[in-house]
């Protein structure tokens, strides 16, 4: 090591694991070349399963979305374990906790948006025909919003 911190690293914790590092998982099936091969095979299988679920009539049509979500989550799990070497070991606690917080925020953003916007879509009244007619009659950007509802000739 020619790094200038090499000398101070000697006094540091040598038993901790960086994200994606696989020093301690060496005795486990997810380690080394067999681990990458296993992950590659599983991910390929799950990808093929996703395409089959979406392209054939094998799955009841309204349930395809559930199948795709489950298969995608499974494949993300395969990637995390076999490529990013996440384990449940104590040296990975920090990495797992950071990931869990990220997943929480992602779930809040995606599910919250879909939930709220779905309700807005249901509850907002559709535009009246005369309002729609105004929008299509006026050239883009020339509609005067304040008077648009009442007067037909509301273009600028």
């Amino acid at each position, binding site marked *: 090591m020619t790094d200038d911190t090499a000398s101070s690293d000697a006094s540091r914790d040598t038993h901790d694991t960086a994200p994606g590092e696989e020093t301690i998982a060496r005795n486990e099936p997810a380690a*080394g070349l067999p681990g990458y091969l296993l992950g590659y095979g599983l991910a390929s299988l799950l990808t093929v399963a996703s395409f089959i679920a979406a392209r054939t009539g094998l799955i009841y049509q309204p349930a395809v979305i559930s199948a795709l979500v489950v298969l995608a989550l499974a494949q993300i799990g395969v990637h995390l374990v076999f490529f990013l070497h996440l384990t449940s070991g104590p040296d990975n606690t920090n990495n797992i906790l950071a990931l869990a917080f990220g997943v929480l925020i992602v779930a809040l953003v995606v599910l919250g948006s879909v939930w709220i916007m779905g309700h807005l879509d249901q509850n907002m009244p559709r535009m009246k025909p005369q309002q729609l007619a105004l929008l299509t009659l006026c050239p883009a950007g020339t509609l005067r919003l304040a008077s648009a509802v009442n007067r037909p000739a509301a273009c600028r």
Partner: protein
Amino acid sequence: MSGQSDAMPSDITAGSATRDPYVLGHPSGAGKKGSGDQLATGHGEGGPASKFVTVTYGFWIFLLSDIIMFSGFFASYAVLANATNGGPTGKQLFDLTRVAIQTGLLLTSTFTAGLASLALERRSVIGTQAWLLVTGVLGALFLLLEGQEFITMIGDDAGPARSAFLSAFFALVGCHGLHVGLGILWLGTMMAQLWVKGFRADILRRLHCFSLFWHALDIIWVAIFSLVYLLGASQ
């Protein structure tokens, strides 16, 4: 009690370090107070973390924030997926053969990135450079197919200005493509740095961060091909 456990190891310690890699059984210091915890990881007992761990952990946090940014694009796409404004729908636009090839390319490139990190562990210059090159070429082919798709769509009057659905689609998929492009640039500079500077500690850290980045890009692509392309084409 302490003398007894020194002389006669308990059942937990019988398998040695290979069966108890985290030293949770505290075999060596069963009688001496606190000495067992020094070997147990993740408790901060071994002193401050090494620079490799702190740098990579910082990059891990960046990746998670990047994924949170992508979740915003995913949320807007999910909300606007049906807002086609009378224009073409995903079912009409998406070419699943191309998507299947793209998926294969990116998955294989994430695998070869893993092979590059295995070669890096063996300190094999040729192996590392070769697998990094394969990774970059596969990523470039992926980008080429994506560019072809975008150009075809824009030529068919299905550009990002056509409808809210297409704006959200181009924003989400284009942002992923941008990440892949930046990743290829990073990969090229890493190959040059490895060539010139060799296996220095800082180079090892950067290569490890790059491989984390590349694996994370494939995780985002899994969500894109499932929830954008396959779901859009099956509806």
